[in-house]
């Protein structure tokens, strides 16, 4: 098992290096460079710039370096925690990153747990109650969940919360707590705000996962060993939960890796509508402003999150399935 984890971690590191190459290419893609913006800004602030000044800046940022050297400079900095500067915020990227990334992880993990618990229960129910009215109702809800863009759902829920429930909406904290230090009251306030994002981000993933779970379970219920279990005289509940669900979970764990990108994507988009202090709003703003170091750092960390999630899924699968464990 330990060797298995080690090998998967090795794969992950290799993938990360390629992820970094893509990240670097994205920085280099847009027309114009960080330096041009910097020079334009300095010009705006005051007076002219001497050609020597510009040349000094060019050397410092390595504008004329060959591409592999540029990559190396950026990558080695990245590994050491130097992610470059955000020209828009005029701060090192690292200062903007951590807290927002923390909230993204928190919301993603909670959404994941929510959508798994709901998916398994709903999937088992609808697979074992096939061709009944509740199954059709669940199917309709699943279709809708998959068809509504998450930002639209966020808007509708916010309007609902504001107009019908009379709640203060948006953000993760009430005004009083936004800048307050952490306390129990602030934590409770956070919990009160979390249900909308979790529901909104989890909706489409839950609709999809519960559909996958239903399909898996229907497949497994056709397996011979389920018939064997029934032939032993086990009750239908034992047959389903002990023999069928356990095996239907394998493919679900395998698609865990696939459901994560959806959650992280959803989180970034929904955060804009819900005005949440997570990576999303800053990331898309950085893209629109061509603040590439900031944007790419965020993108890289989102990819790393995903890779860690996939590693976790692999380990879970090995734990669940003896055939993989003994490989």
């Amino acid at each position, binding site marked *: 098992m330990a060797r298995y984890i080690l090998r998967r971690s090795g794969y992950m590191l290799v993938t990360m290096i390629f992820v970094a190459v893509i990240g670097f290419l994205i920085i280099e893609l847009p027309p114009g460079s960080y330096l041009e913006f910097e020079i334009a800004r300095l010009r705006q602030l005051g007076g002219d710039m001497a050609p020597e000044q510009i040349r000094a800046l060019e050397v410092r940022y390595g504008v004329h370096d060959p591409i592999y050297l540029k990559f190396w400079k950026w990558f080695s900095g990245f590994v050491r925690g130097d992610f470059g500067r955000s020209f828009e915020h005029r701060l090192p990227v690292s200062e903007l990153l951590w807290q927002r990334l923390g909230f993204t992880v928190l919301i993603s993990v909670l959404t994941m747990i929510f959508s798994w618990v709901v998916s398994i229960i709903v999937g088992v129910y609808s697979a074992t109650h096939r061709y009944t009215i509740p199954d059709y109702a669940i199917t309709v809800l699943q279709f809708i969940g998959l068809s509504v863009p998450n930002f639209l759902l966020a808007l509708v829920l916010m309007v609902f919360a504001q107009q019908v429930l009379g709640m203060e909406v948006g953000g993760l904290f009430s005004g009083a707590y936004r800048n307050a230090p952490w306390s129990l009251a602030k934590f409770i306030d956070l919990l009160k705000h979390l249900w909308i994002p979790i529901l909104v981000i989890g909706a489409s993933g839950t609709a999809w996962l519960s559909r996958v779970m239903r399909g898996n379970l229907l497949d497994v219920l056709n397996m011979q060993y389920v018939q064997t279990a*029934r032939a032993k005289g086990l009750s239908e509940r034992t047959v389903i939960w002990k023999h069928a669900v356990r095996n239907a979970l394998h493919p679900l764990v395998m698609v865990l890796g696939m459901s994560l990108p959806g959650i992280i994507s959803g989180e970034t988009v929904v955060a804009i509508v819900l005005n949440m202090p997570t990576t999303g709003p800053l990331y898309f703003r950085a893209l629109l402003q061509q603040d590439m170091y900031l944007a790419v750092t965020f993108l890289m960390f989102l990819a790393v999150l995903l890779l860690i999630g996939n590693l976790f899924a692999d380990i879970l699968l090995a734990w669940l399935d003896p055939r993989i464990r003994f490989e």
Partner: protein
Amino acid sequence: MAKQAGSSTTPEGLVVRVRDLHVYFFTDLGVSRALNGVSLDIPAGKVTGVVGESGCGKSVTALSIMRLVPHPGRITKGEILLYREREKQNGHSIVEEVNLTDLDPQGPVIRSIRGAELAMIFQEPMTSLNPSYTIGDQIMEAILLHQQCTRKEAEERAVDILARAGMPNPQTVVRRYPHELSGGMRQRAMIAMALSCTPSVLFADEPTTALDVTTEAQILDLMRELQAAMGMAIVFITHNLGVVAQMCDTVAVMYLGRVVEQAPVEPLFYDPQHPYTRALLRSIPHVGSRTKARLQPIRGVVPDPYATIEGCPFHPRCDYRKPGLCDVRVPATTQVGENHTVRCFLYTEQGEDNG
């Protein structure tokens, strides 16, 4: 639901009696008539072979008796009687007749019968064991369900029954997962699991089809041996007539959802009555036949089960077909010898409707 027959032996020595059983599958594309009036007697303590081409309803018959017909199949007509022996306080055992078709297929009564009195093993040993649990867990599950004992006792019994099923190193095998065993070993494990609660009937649905010839012979020997030792009835479902001749005491020949002939094994092979049985026997080689003689395939193929055929289902392929009779009415079951019945208008004028 259960009436007491009151005698100490089962009626006519039967353990299961199936009468006019109809099982239909209601699919999106139409109704598939899997069983069209199966009547079958399963004698206690003997091996009954059920033979027929693919799709004739052999497996569905077994699943129906277990009350495990999968969705969208339903028993639409007929009855399945189980004669279960019950110990009385004074040492007399009495026989209780249970009509299985009356039971809720998921209810407690049929569940107490499944595994304990009716057990089943399947064609694919690769998929009939749950990959997520050890062999021991899966055998003990049945023992703990039907017998009063502790986990430790259950494990001892599991090891014991595995040993009886010819499993080498049963103590270590109980901790193994199915994927660690070969096909033959898995089938031994399945047999051990099925026999763990000493059932009175074991349904074996082509248990050796997926195995290689050597393993097949070993498994067949084992089943015969265990049958003799434990005295249960085996219903052996197969399309292999050689295996039938080797294994069975009586044989039921099925065609398109009906039993067309049932007889003890020797009369069936030496004096087949139904044209289909004859055709079936002509289609396989046998020792002593002239070397130049050609095997005769049965003309045509099994019709698809969605089709409705008027009259005897075999008449379109039958050489002895009587126009105006065979293509209009279904023949009734007729006694032609001791324990030998046949459904064919060659032996009766009676149709199913007036018989």
